[in-house]
């Protein structure tokens, strides 16, 4: 565990971006998330860790209402984004998802050109007033996703032709092109090799300047490397949530300690 750089962590702000209270999620009969309370801070990387099937991805998908697309899924409790309940009737999930972007486990570029992939969100939300405007958004997003140098000469080529790591960075560029306030990442590096993983992790750290990032990961090293806050999920419960250094070095709950030392999971 040498690469656990458990140095002092600077949390950018104490401002709460997302406040979840008493969240329960059911898939049909099964109770996937049990009474979870969590405050996700602005301009901070928050990591969700825990064994497979513990509900961390499910909870992540609650934050942009992607669970709505699953037929028998039911969410109760309150999740507030900047004080506004996102499960309120008046909230359009489509607009919410423009505010809360998401990057998936497996890179999923559309079968379109690199340019069209990044321009997809801005186009459907009408963010660009002109072609030049759109070009600028695309370039900016690709630069922030550290893909511009590799992609600038092949913007018209299919995004599916990129390598796995490049595809994932393309998906990140696509997600940040709509300038969301929160970026959700569901195991974004699990399909990538170590070099691509390092690039994406570096990127996540840079994204923190502008977004609140929530990342689900199976790798505790990764959680320790990139996050300032860590939440440990186990069997649908939020067991422990706190400052990353504290969770890894001095866990309060015995279950957290067992997990991070490799005894359960």
């Amino acid at each position, binding site marked *: 565990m040498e690469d656990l750089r458990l140095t002092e962590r600077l949390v950018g702000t104490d401002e709460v971006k997302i406040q979840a209270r008493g969240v329960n999620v059911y898939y049909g009969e099964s109770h996937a998330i049990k009474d979870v309370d969590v405050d996700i801070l602005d301009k901070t990387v928050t990591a969700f860790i825990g064994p497979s099937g513990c509900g961390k991805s499910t909870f992540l998908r609650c934050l*942009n209402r*992607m669970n709505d*697309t699953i*037929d028998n899924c039911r969410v109760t409790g309150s999740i507030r984004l900047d004080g506004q309940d996102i499960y309120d009737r008046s909230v359009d999930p*489509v*607009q*919410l*998802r*423009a*505010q809360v*972007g*998401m990057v*998936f486990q*497996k890179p*999923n*570029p*559309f*079968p*379109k050109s690199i340019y069209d992939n990044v321009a*997809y*969100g801005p186009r*459907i*939300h009408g963010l660009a007033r002109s072609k030049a405007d759109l070009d600028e958004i695309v370039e900016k997003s690709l630069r922030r996703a550290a893909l511009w140098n590799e992609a600038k000469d092949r913007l018209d080529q*299919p995004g*599916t032709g990129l390598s796995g790591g490049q595809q994932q960075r393309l*998906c990140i560029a*696509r*997600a940040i092109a*709509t300038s969301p306030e929160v970026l959700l990442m569901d195991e974004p590096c699990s399909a990538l090799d170590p070099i691509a993983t390092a690039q994406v992790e570096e990127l996540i750290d840079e994204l923190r300047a502008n977004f609140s990032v929530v990342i689900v990961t199976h790798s505790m090293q990764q959680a320790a490397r990139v996050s300032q806050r860590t939440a440990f999920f186990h069997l649908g419960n939020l067991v422990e949530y706190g400052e990353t250094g504290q969770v890894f070095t001095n866990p309060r709950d015995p279950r957290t300690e067992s997990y991070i030392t490799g005894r359960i999971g």
Partner: protein
Amino acid sequence: MTLFAFALLFAATVAAYMLNRAAAASLARRGERLHSLATFHGGFAALVVLLPVFLVILLWLLFQGPVISALVMGGLPEGVLDGLGKGEVSLIAAEIQSIAAGQVFGTPEPWKLEAAERLVRLRATSGTLLVVTVAALSVVLLFLARRTVAPEFRARHGVERMVLGILVFCSTVAIFTTVGIVLSLIYESWQFFRLVPITEFLFGTNWEPQIPIRADQIAGAGAFGWLPVILGTVVITVIALAVSVPIGLFSAIYLNEFASRRMRAVVKPVLEILAGVPTVVYGFFAVLTVAPALRAAGAEFGIPISPNTALAAGSVMAIMLIPFISSFTDDALAAVPRALRDGSLALGATRGETMLKVLFPAAIPGIVGGILLAVSRAIGETMIVVMAAGLIATMTINPLDSVTTVTVQIVTLLIGDTSFDNPKTLAAFALGMMLFIVTLGINILALRIVRKYRELYD
């Protein structure tokens, strides 16, 4: 006798299997290490007996008739066939055959009775010879197969090779049959083009094929220009597609993306039932419901509409094609990875935008392939147009006019009097040939489009 030969072969096959398996098993019991399991030794022997003997029986049955017939005709008394044409000789042969089968008409000449008797005798001899041959061959093969049983003999490889051969044979049966069909089409079409110049057929704008077959028939002078006929096919196909493609596509999009699960559970099976309706029933519907309704509607507006309109036939054909296009589209949409859908939704796209910009483009190869196959079906569809389209070939693209199609003309040409040295009958084959070429072209195009887009999207 043939049945007996088959029974014999079956018994020999079973015996070969049992013998070799038992022999191999006893080797194994004595502590020998066999390369193949005992059942493979048995199977090897069974196939070694079965395949060659089966082939011999088939060939025997294939050639027995012609050979015996040649022998009988060759043994007729001198002079009775002198000066007779080919057709008359084959008539005599047929008469002898029917006498041999016990159907005697009038009082045949004594030499015919004699020939019939010889035919019966030869057939009996042939049957006996077949059984003897099968028995002898089986015994020899049984013996040869039995000698192969040895620890190091690779019976499993032998079985696998023979089974592979059988698989290859089965997969090429369809191909060779198709080749045979095409060859016969080409032959008959060639006969036709000897009577009617190919340029007249391809570029003529007049189609009046009802010419006399016998000298005393009263009929038209005849004209064999296929353009009005293929134009009719094109008109009906275009109408059918213009109606069925949008309906099929939209119903698939609805079912795939927007319908609730209960809705889907009802609508999908109903669409599939629609696909199973016999086309003759669609034909009734076109003739008895759609066509009169169209006429009545036309009368309201003072437009004269003929009873057999292209519109009626085409729109009913469209109903037939809807489930076809819908299920192809649905499959193509369902095959788009869920990750793409989620990716689009997570960017804040609505379901409609996701469908239009991500799912539909990714599904295009499958959809285009399905539509082109539907075109092939529309062009080749016979029953609906036979019932609902007209018989007179008119050069028109007016959907309210009566048109005829290639398939309708093939049917009418082959109904009633036929004679294979007359252009009227042979024209059917020329039309069939052209139909085959057109649908083949469309299918090749469909495959190419599918492949091209697939390269683009994967």
